[in-house]
């Protein structure tokens, strides 16, 4: 183990905190994820310890750390902050260095970010205050259907006759779901309908360019969303190796000196 410098990115999201550790060559060395909870600073510390252990490094080797996400101001060891929009863009461009549209499905918001071939952002959109299409929406629907969140992906995959949810609003969608339950629809068909409504909310946020990359914890745990997106837009969708960690990796790349030089 050489004593080379390490760079840390910490993404404190509304639901999960993620830490990525990279080396000077941009290689991923350590990862950790925990529930953000209510003490963001402590969670960020815990994630760092875990990710450093995986990297086999000492805290003394950290050359620089950048934080991002909702709780970015609470990370004690970060020297700088970047927005999650910049970091998700950076993390995805690192994996796919060409003109791309990044779709990030987060716990409480979605982002659509466009990058040119040089990795410069040409525009971005965040969804509005509404939870429709976000991880929070999925959680709400899982609760309504009384099924564990982690089983949703497998259930959606099994569906042969998806139900359509027409509404924009989480509360209205919940009512629609109840209607379908009342009419005896199969749960897996309803779950697929919930997935479909999520990706519909996203494609209406902005136009998509040729190459689309999907990231975020929701995508990591529900890969079927990617398949459905591919069907909807009629072309393949790229997913980086660690979709839940794209923001943290992007932050670590910023800590190193930016992602466009990589």
């Amino acid at each position: 183990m050489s004593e080379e410098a390490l760079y840390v990115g910490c993404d404190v999201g509304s639901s999960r905190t993620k830490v990525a550790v990279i080396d000077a060559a941009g290689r991923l060395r350590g990862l950790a994820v925990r529930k953000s909870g209510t003490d963001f600073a402590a969670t960020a510390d815990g994630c760092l310890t875990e990710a450093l252990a995986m990297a086999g490094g000492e805290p003394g080797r950290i050359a620089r750390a950048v934080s991002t996400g909702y709780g970015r101001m609470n990370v004690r060891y970060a020297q700088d902050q970047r927005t999650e929009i910049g970091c998700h863009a950076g993390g995805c461009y690192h994996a796919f260095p060409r003109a791309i549209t990044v779709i990030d499905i987060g716990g409480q918001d979605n982002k659509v970010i466009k990058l040119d071939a040089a990795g410069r952002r040409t525009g971005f959109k965040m969804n509005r205050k509404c939870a429709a299409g976000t991880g929070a929406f999925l959680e709400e629907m899982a609760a309504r259907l009384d099924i564990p969140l982690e089983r949703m992906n497998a259930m959606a995959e099994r569906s042969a006759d998806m139900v359509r949810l027409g509404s924009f609003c989480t509360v209205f969608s919940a009512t629609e779901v109840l209607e379908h339950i009342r009419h005896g629809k199969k749960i897996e068909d309803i779950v697929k309908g919930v997935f479909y409504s999520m990706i519909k909310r996203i494609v209406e946020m902005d136009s998509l360019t040729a190459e689309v990359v999907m990231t975020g914890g929701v995508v990591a745990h529900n890969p079927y969303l990617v398949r459905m997106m591919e069907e909807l837009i009629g072309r393949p969708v790229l997913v980086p190796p660690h979709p839940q960690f794209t923001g943290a990796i992007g932050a670590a790349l910023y800590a190193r000196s930016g992602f466009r030089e990589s």
Partner: protein
Amino acid sequence: MSEEKKAPRKKLAAAADINRFMRDYYLELDAAARAGSPKIAWCTSVGPAEILRALGFLVYFPETHSAMLGATRMATDLIPEANAIGYSPDICSYLTADIGAFLRGVTPLQKAFGIQSIPRPDVLVYNTNQCRDVQDWFVWYGEKFNAPVLGVHTYRGVDEVTDRHIVSIAKQLEALIPPLEKVAGRRFEMEDLRRAVDLSRQCSELWKQILDTAAARPSPITFFDGTTLMGPAVVGRGTPQAVEVYRKLLEELEERIRRREGAVDEERFRIYWDGMPVWGRLSAHAQLFAALHANVLASTYCNSWIFSALDPNDPITSMARAYTELFIVRSDEAKEEYIRRMLSFFQVDGIIYHDAKTCPNNSNCRYGMPQRLEKETGIPSLIINGDLNDLRLISDEQTKTNVEAFIEQLEERRK
């Protein structure tokens, strides 16, 4: 890029004069309301104030009062009062906050100037050139106070302002005069109107010069300053006092330019703001941009009180033109042409559109305008969702992240 870094905001000395102007303005109205003389007319912010001044009315503008409800963050609690009597939370939150305040019997004038209530109108005069909500708003008060309500009904989506528009609006303006004479208890004299229009024009010219100082690098003024400095341009047009305070303000800004003193430390990004301000977040937004070395220096909103067409030699016709030429009355083509001119005049790096939930009339980002302008000019844009007065419609965290990410984007373009 931390928003926690506090950037000191530089105060303009003339701001104190403007505060005094506003205090005197409201105290005069209050005294008149209590004495029953002079007569008081309520007017919409881009309504025919000059005719009212020519007839000796003191003129009160409910929108400015409602902006105060917003700026003092009283509005959000008051809006539900109006919702409860049938005014939807989706309509103008100036209207709902103002009516809510009246129903609750409160006013920000109390804390600011020791004034107990808004001045009772003898007549209310609107122009729908900005929106229909003002008509509903004035009609409600007209009934409450048993006072006559008069109005000018405008054209909408005007592409090119033609003689046909002008003749029709001028006729409507003339038609206001006989009923107003009756309320005023005096005859209308054209000479008085010429004088009022002349003063209004002077005020407008000075206000334009003040806003145009933002073309300097660095800009000596921000949009957020503008939203409070514009008081006299709205409530004082047609008065000599407004002209006086603006002369002083202009001198101060010109002095700042000579000294190359920017309103924001180390101005790096120059931003244009389209749409209403978020009144309850003026200083928070000013701080947010200043910390990023970005100056929001020009806006459609502050420019809306520039009435270059006013001409004392032809008062009525020129009023008809000035109040129809306004941005808010125009077609998207005319609006885009206007914004393009502003972007190049102020050398803007990026545009922010405020999509105000309760004011579609001032939210110009709903029909593809940002995309069209961005394609034509190459200047990036950002839409932020919010509202003028209803803070329940705002997510500060989202606004902050969006703005910071936008400035990051502008920064990347320079590399």
